[in-house]
C-alpha cells in the first residue's frame, strides 16, 4: 500500500492536499512547485525559493471547501503579501470553523494564464469498479455536464477518444484562431490517473479540478483524494 494512503487510513482521514500532490507526482504527473510551511517566515522563504507570484492554501483535514473558508489566496507578488495572506488565512479559517485542525499552509507556484481549464476525476461504480472521467472545467462541467468516462485500464486511443467525445473538444483542439492545446499531455495525465486508481484500490474518489492544459503541457492546480471509509 502507498505510504501516504496507509498513514491517512490509520488516522481515519482522507489525503491532505500535499499528500495528494505527492501521490500524483509519484505517478509522473508534473505538479506545480510547492512547499508545506508552518510559520509566516517559512512561507516567505518558500515563496522566495519557488518564485513569485505564489498561491497560499490552508491544509486541514477538517475543511472540505477551502475557498468557502477563506483558505485560499492567489496572485501574491511579494513577501509582504505572503505574510498578510498567511495571517489572513488563519484568521478566516478560525472564524469559519473554530475547531478545524490546521496542518499548515501550502505555498504553491502560481500558474501562468493562457490555458484551458479541464477536470479529471475518478469515481467508484458499483458494477464496473474504478471509472475515470474527463471534462472541461468551470461551467462546462457544472452546468453543461460536458464529461466523458472510461473504465481502466486505458490505452492512449481510449484517452484520446474520451477527450474527443467532449462537446467542447474544439476548445482544446483550437477555435477562432486559438492555438491548439496540448491534448496529448491531457491524455497522458488521464493514463497516469487511470493507473494510479487501479493500483490503489483504497481510493474512493480522486479529483484534479482544475487541471490547466497549455499549448505545451498540462498541470494540476488542485487535487483531492478521498479514501474508502471501510478498507
Amino acid at each position: 500500500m502507498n505510504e501516504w494512503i496507509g498513514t491517512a487510513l490509520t488516522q481515519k482521514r482522507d489525503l491532505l492536499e500535499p499528500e495528494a500532490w505527492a501521490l500524483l507526482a509519484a505517478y509522473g504527473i508534473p505538479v506545480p512547485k510547492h512547499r508545506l510551511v508552518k510559520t509566516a517566515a517559512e512561507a516567505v522563504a518558500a515563496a522566495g525559493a519557488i518564485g513569485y507570484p505564489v498561491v497560499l492554501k490552508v491544509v486541514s483535514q477538517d475543511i472540505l471547501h477551502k475557498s468557502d473558508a477563506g483558505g485560499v489566496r492567489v496572485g501574491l507578488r511579494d513577501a509582504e503579501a505572503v505574510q498578510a495572506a498567511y495571517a489572513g488565512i488563519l484568521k478566516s479559517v478560525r472564524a469559519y470553523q473554530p475547531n478545524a485542525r490546521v496542518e499548515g499552509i501550502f505555498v504553491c507556484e502560481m500558474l501562468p494564464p493562457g490555458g484551458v481549464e479541464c477536470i479529471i476525476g475518478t469515481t467508484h461504480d458499483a458494477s464496473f469498479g474504478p471509472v475515470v472521467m474527463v471534462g472541461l472545467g468551470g461551467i462546462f462541467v457544472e452546468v453543461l455536464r460536458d464529461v466523458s468516462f472510461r473504465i481502466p485500464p486505458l490505452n492512449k486511443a481510449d484517452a484520446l477518444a474520451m477527450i474527443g467525445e467532449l462537446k467542447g473538444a474544439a476548445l482544446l483542439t483550437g477555435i477562432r484562431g486559438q492555438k491548439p492545446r496540448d491534448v496529448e499531455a491531457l491524455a497522458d495525465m488521464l493514463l497516469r490517473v487511470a493507473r494510479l486508481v487501479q493500483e490503489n484500490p483504497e481510493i474512493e474518489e480522486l479529483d484534479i479540478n482544475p487541471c490547466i492544459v497549455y499549448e505545451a503541457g498540462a498541470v494540476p492546480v488542485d487535487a483531492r483524494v478521498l479514501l474508502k471509509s471501510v478498507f
Partner: protein
Amino acid sequence: MPNLDTIRSLFYAKSVAVVGASANPSKTGYVILKNILEGGYAGAVYPINPGSESILGVPCAASLGDVPGAVDLVVIVVPARAVPDVMRQAVQKGAKGAIIISGGFREIGNAELEAEVMAIAEAGGIAVIGPNCQGVNYLPNKLCASWPLIETRGAMAVVSQSGTIGAAMGGWAAEDGLGVTATVALGNNSGVPVIDLMQFFAQEDDVRVIALNIEGVRDGRQFMEAARAVLQKKPLVLLKPGRTAKGAEAAQSHTKSIAGSDAVFDAACRQIGLIRAEGIAEFYDYSKILSLLPKPAGRRLAILTSSGGSGILAADVAEDLGIALPPLGEEAVQALREKLPPQCVLANPLDLTGDATADRYRVALEALSAYDVADCFLLIFGDPIAGAAEMADAVRQKLGKPIVVAFLGGGEVEKQEVPLLIRAGIPAYPTPERAVRAIGALLRKS
C-alpha cells in the same frame, strides 16, 4: 471458459416435458405445449398433468417419474412453490436442462425459494433458463418453448431479459421475412449466465448478429471482457433501458439488477465497440442490418430517391451521424445526364422524381457503378415502385457495394416488395431516418 455443451444440450434437447401442461387454451401451459407441437419439433413431447389423460392429442403423464422415456429438457409452468419438487424429479429423471417459466421468485422477494430451486438444479447438473421468463425458441431444433410461435429462421440470435422485447424482435423479424435463430428470455437469469449465452451464439455458424437486451450487469468488468471476446467473432447490439434516473429506478425494482450509472455503462460500450441501441426500434433496425450486410469500406453514402423530401430527411440524419454525402463528380453526373430524363436532380441525394420506376433506378445505378462515388447506397422508394426488389437484387453484383432501402408511401406494392428485398439480403426500413441510422450502426461495427 464456460461449458457451452450444457447450453447446446439444452437447446438441442431430443425430448421435452412440459410440467404444468394444461388443456385450458387461456393457460401458458397450453400455449407452450401447442407451440412446441405446431412448431414441428421432432423429438418426444410429454405433457405432465396429473388431472388429464391427454392434451392436444398427446398422452399426459401424472409426473416426470411416470414418463416412459428419457427427458432431456423440462419446461416448468407450475406455481413457484411446486418448482423445487419438480426440479428434484427432473434431476432423478436425468434431465440436462430446465426452462422455468413460472414467476413468483426473487422478483417479488422470494429469493430463498429461488435459491433452493437453483441449488437443486446445480447439484443435479441441470442448466436453467429463467425463472420468471418467457422461455426459449430455438429454431435450428424447431423448439418453440415460448410464445408466440415464430417459425421464420434467420441469422439473428435474440437474448432478452424482457420476454416482450424478445417476442417483439422475433415477431418483427418474421413479418419482415428476416427471421431469427433463437429468442432466449432471461427473466431473473439465475441459471445460465448471459455471457455464456453470448459466447454460445458467437460460435454458432448460422448466427450473424447477437441482439442482447439486459437491464443491468452485476459485474461490469466481467461483462466487458466477455463482450470484447464475442465482438471478435460477431457483432453485438445492445438494448439497455434505464438511461435516466427514473428508468434506472424502474430497472432496479423490475428485476433487482444492480444497474450501475448509465453514463458509465455507455462509456464501457464505446470502449469495447459494442453497438448500443437507443430504443427498441433501433434495437431491431441495427440487428437487422448487421445480420444482412458487411461493414462498408468507408463512410461515403450515395442516396437515390423518388421523393425529394425523403432524400432531405435522410441527408439530415447522415449529417448528424457524420456520414458523408459526397458530390457525385462531373463524370458521373455527365453519364447520368445522358441516361436520365431532364427532370431528375443530378446531385447527392440523386432525385429520380415521383414518376421513377424500378428501371430508372437500374439505369442510374448502372451508370454510377462505373465510378467510385460511394461506399454504400441508400435507395429510397417513395412511391409504389413495382419490381424494386428484383431490380436491387440484380444490380447489386454490378455495384459491388452494400445497398440499404427505405420504402415508404408504396401502399400494397411496398407490402409485397419489402419481404422480397429482405429475403434477397437487402435491409429495408419504413423511413429514411431509420435506414440512415441503421447505416450509422453498421459503420460502428468493429
